[in-house]
């Protein structure tokens, strides 16, 4: 078979693309309330419900759910909040960080949970919304701590740099801390979830097409292999989803610490 023939053989297959992320509305006609928005609401209720239930009925001998809840809470409290922000101020930010971590984690896990299979933050607007909250939080903390002018000074003038070069550094520091930071924070989460989901639908749809729509045994067997790989990639995605939820929370804590610090 010639190469042209092989290319023609794949013509019936429509490769997945960014269009696959535009899902139809769930209720009525509003495009604003599609599957991602529904998942966001479900995850908020689920995370709140989980921690409400597991912390309400605290028993001396903890149930399995209470144990998981306490372990997760303790992990964020101690190895993220306390270690990054420092023992003096960390306690009041623990609820925010714990909520952020588990909210993002569950939304990411939706990407591989059977029948749900859509990571909410693969729609960039949700990730940007989350980054705006973090941006308001750390800038707010900075202004509360240092005053508006003091915070601007804190943000734009790094310690250890003196002399005329400071004039050149000030706009650069302002750009990188105030403008670039929230964008990279959102972009990292969004791009990881987007790429992961795209990879999964490519392998799943491609495998299914090779298996069912080809009359060649070789293509059929490659299709089976592709579907097995899709399962393997799901496990890789599980790792990415965990890491991204952790990185987002860790960076939030680092930004809070940076805004609180006496010395830049």
């Amino acid at each position, binding site marked *: 078979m010639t190469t042209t023939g092989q290319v023609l053989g794949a013509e019936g297959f429509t490769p997945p693309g960014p269009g696959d992320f535009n899902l139809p509305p769930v209720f009525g006609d509003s495009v604003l309330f599609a599957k991602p928005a529904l998942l966001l609401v479900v995850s908020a209720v689920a995370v709140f419900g989980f921690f409400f239930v597991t912390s309400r009925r605290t028993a001396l001998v903890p149930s399995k759910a209470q144990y998981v809840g306490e372990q997760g809470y303790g992990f964020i409290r101690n190895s993220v909040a306390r270690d990054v922000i420092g023992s003096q101020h960390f306690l009041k930010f623990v609820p925010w960080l714990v909520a952020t971590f588990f909210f993002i984690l569950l939304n990411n896990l939706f990407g591989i949970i059977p029948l749900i299979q859509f990571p909410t933050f693969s729609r960039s607007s949700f990730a940007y919304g989350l980054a705006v909250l973090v941006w308001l939080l750390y800038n707010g903390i900075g202004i509360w701590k240092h005053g508006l002018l003091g915070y601007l000074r804190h943000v734009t003038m790094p310690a250890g740099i003196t002399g005329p070069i400071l004039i050149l550094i000030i706009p650069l520091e302002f750009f990188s801390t105030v403008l*670039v930071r929230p964008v990279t924070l959102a972009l990292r989460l969004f791009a990881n979830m987007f790429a992961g989901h795209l990879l999964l639908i490519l392998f799943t749809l491609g495998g299914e097409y090779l298996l069912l729509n080809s009359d060649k045994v070789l293509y059929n067997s490659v299709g089976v292999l592709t579907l097995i790989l899709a399962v393997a990639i799901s496990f890789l995605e599980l790792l990415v989803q965990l890491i991204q939820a952790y990185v987002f929370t860790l960076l939030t804590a680092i930004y809070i610490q940076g805004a609180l610090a006496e010395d830049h």
Partner: protein
Amino acid sequence: MSEPPQRVSAADPWAAFGYLVGGAGFYAGVGWLLDQWLETSFLLPAGLLFGIALAIYLVFKLHLNA
């Protein structure tokens, strides 16, 4: 981890990325404005390179303690 907080904030690896994008973006913008004003065309790339150089200097100075 029992290091002082300052060390942890320096451990944000994305700070370097922020400096590079911020530096290149801001000084390319300044160069472009000057280009419009002076009717030249070399100041945008010059500003871009200057911004990148400044960002690299900052990364070395602040985060690598050079």
